[in-house]
């Protein structure tokens, strides 16, 4: 009998009865650990708690039976999901309009105008440059903002305010004063940089442009850093030159394209000469925009490398 009463006193119904009769507050029945005393309420406690949450090591987690079972089911399921997904995509691909057929819906007036009138309307011999930097320039501006956002996020994640520790680990892991590398780089670096500029500046005339030329420039900069170390590279490329270059290139891009969009939508004449197609100074804004994109891409690639290597210029 007594045990039944004990059970009843522990039950929710008993608590509800007490509360309804007004004999107790709902919060009196909170579990012990939920109650607070003022001395508990210190910042140290919170800090300790968050530390203990963080220090829960992966080893202890992975050893539990639940985890092992869970990971087995997880692996099996992910394989099944992937197979279903791949199969359905492959079957879909079979039903798509066949590749290269002239009856495809994608062969319509849009590519026709790009190919037939591209040179006349944009002044660029390279149709792709005309497409991405003139016809659909808003998308490409978005792409350059993607690069900008990516480089900023890498800065947020990896930039260290104190480089001394990073410098130490860098010395251990990376080769220093490698004679062969230095000799090769002193020949290759100027060639790569000149080739990069060539690809950028000829973007509107032949295959290439800001994105590919910028990648070449960036790899040249990384080679320079690898061969000659941070001290020398720092004189040419540092955080200040990065910020100034990327900022001014993006601002120029933003304002130039903003001007072009504004005048285009309001049917105002821009007075930007398209020049003689085939000349190096032709095709209106495409050449300067290619240079801007090239600089942004080059510095993005270089900054990625520097940040992942030691977290600072």
């Amino acid at each position, binding site marked *: 009998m007594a045990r039944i009463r004990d059970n009843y006193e522990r039950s929710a119904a008993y608590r509800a009865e007490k509360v309804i009769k007004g004999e107790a507050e709902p919060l009196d029945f909170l579990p012990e650990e939920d109650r607070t005393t003022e001395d508990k309420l210190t*910042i140290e406690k919170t800090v300790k708690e968050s530390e203990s949450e963080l220090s829960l090591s992966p080893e202890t987690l992975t050893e539990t039976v639940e985890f092992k079972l869970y990971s087995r089911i997880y692996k099996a399921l992910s394989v099944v999901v992937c197979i279903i997904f791949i199969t359905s995509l492959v079957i879909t691909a079979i*039903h*798509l309009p066949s590749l290269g057929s002239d009856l495809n*819906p994608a062969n319509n007036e849009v590519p026709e105008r790009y190919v037939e009138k591209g040179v006349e309307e944009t002044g660029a011999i390279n149709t792709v440059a005309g497409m991405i930097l003139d016809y659909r320039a808003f998308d490409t501006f978005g792409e350059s*903002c*993607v690069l900008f*956002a990516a480089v900023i*996020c890498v800065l947020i994640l990896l930039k260290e305010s104190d480089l001394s520790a990073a410098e130490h680990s860098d010395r251990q892991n990376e080769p220093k004063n490698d004679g062969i590398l230095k000799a090769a780089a002193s020949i290759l670096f100027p060639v790569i940089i000149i080739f990069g500029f060539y690809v950028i500046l000829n973007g509107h005339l032949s295959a290439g442009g800001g994105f590919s030329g910028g990648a070449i420039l960036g790899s040249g900069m990384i080679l320079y850093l690898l061969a000659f170390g941070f001290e020398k590279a720092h004189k040419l490329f540092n955080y200040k030159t990065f910020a100034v270059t990327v900022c001014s290139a993006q601002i120029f891009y933003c304002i130039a394209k903003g001007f072009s*969009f504004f005048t285009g939508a309001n049917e105002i004449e821009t007075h930007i000469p398209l020049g003689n197609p085939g000349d190096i100074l032709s095709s209106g804004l495409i050449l300067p925009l290619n240079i801007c994109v090239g600089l942004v891409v080059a510095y993005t690639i270089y900054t990625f490398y520097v940040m992942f290597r030691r977290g600072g210029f």
Partner: protein
Amino acid sequence: MMLWWQNLPFLSIFLMILSSIVSLSLSFKAARNICVISLGTVLTMSVITFCGVYVSKESFVYKMGHFPAPWGNEIRSGLLEPFLASIFAIIMLLAVLGGMKHIRNDIESKKLNLYFLTTDLLFASILALIYTNDIFTGYVFLEICTITTCGILMIRQIGRTTLAAVRYMIISLLGSGIFLIGITLMYDISGYLLMENMREGIAKAIETDGMTLPTVMSIVLVSLGLSIKCGLFPFHFWMSDTYGYATPSSSAILSGIVSKGYIILLLKIYYRVIGIETVAQSHIQDILFVFGLAGIIVGSVNAIRENDIFRMIAFSSAAQIGYIFVGFSLGTQAGFTAAVFQILSHAVTKPLLFISASMLSDASGGSKKFSDLMGSALRSKIAGIGFTAGALSMVGIPFLSGFVTKILIGTASFESPSKMMPILVVLAISTVLNAVYYLRTVVRIYHPRDLNKKEPKYSNDGYSSSVFSAVIVCFVALNLSIGFFSDFVTDIIRTGLSMLA
């Protein structure tokens, strides 16, 4: 002929991008001021555009460059777009101002300007998602949105936020990838990237060949990709860590605006690219319906089991996203209206909860555990009021925005008899569950730790609390006005949706 105010959507996107770029070489204070000023300007511009469209009663397209679409890019605005842009600008402004103290405490001082840089760029991408009329532009800005969101998450550098940001990145990129495959299939079927032309192309393809596998697959992939990105059940598990450990402004922006940006893109694709009749034929809505309902229940149950106020609010987001998809799944005008209203209601309520919960936690020595939060509303009155208002709105108390959503979804469900009963039952269950965890929290924060002692008033660590109070008051006022003028708001949404089609 262009009218002068029709330039404003384009200018607002470019203003946000420009202020973001400029912030790279500025100090924290300058970057903050530029962020606040440009958000204010965008708000004014959006309100003017809204008034312009409201008076002229016609949507307009804006050519981006010298070539008309489909050769060039264009943006387009009806009534709904500037309305959403203005509400989002207000929320963004309030979220940044309300969390300023935490931004300064949580973030390394040398990276503070980068925070405002990323928020500016994030908002620019949201504006572009709202206004775009070209599906590839939509994809590009979707990417910017994902990357900048990771930026504002991991800028608070404790281990958990980095982990949460990585998890968010993986899930979100999976969503982007699936979405990209979806729009590629659509391009293959229709041959265009401009929304109107795609719709004609898809309609033509369905007319000649019927609902072929690629058509169904493209609809499924686009819906799947975007619902993964905004955290529909069962893809909601990243939310608790992501919202729980980021700096409060980031949590507010992410839950209030970013996930809504994805949903708005999905809405535009349903209305402008596929057409809601075709969506109904593909039966994707029945799948969304099941997962929406499941999300409502599972989100609420997870929230009840949490012992951390931020993670509780985060799980309740999963439930709220579920409501939006239930609205979508009805496939009727009324259903979409309810969904858009829920977007607005959730966008004004969730940031309010995050911002006031951050203040409550400050008043309790920085702890987020419920046991420590007891009496915190007595220590910080304004935060208590804010949290209570937000909680009541989430539960669905009349005159607050959350109530109207439930009414709208309930009445919309009468039009589709097969879905009516499950919706009404789940609405009832979810209201009870919401009441359990939100009202329990409200009772706790107003219950003093010691009944005999008076709770000490919390002073805001030397930061001015007047800005914070103003932010809370604005949020509550916004919530109340959406609730009170719900007829006006639903009218705008209805007209906006009919302009969208």
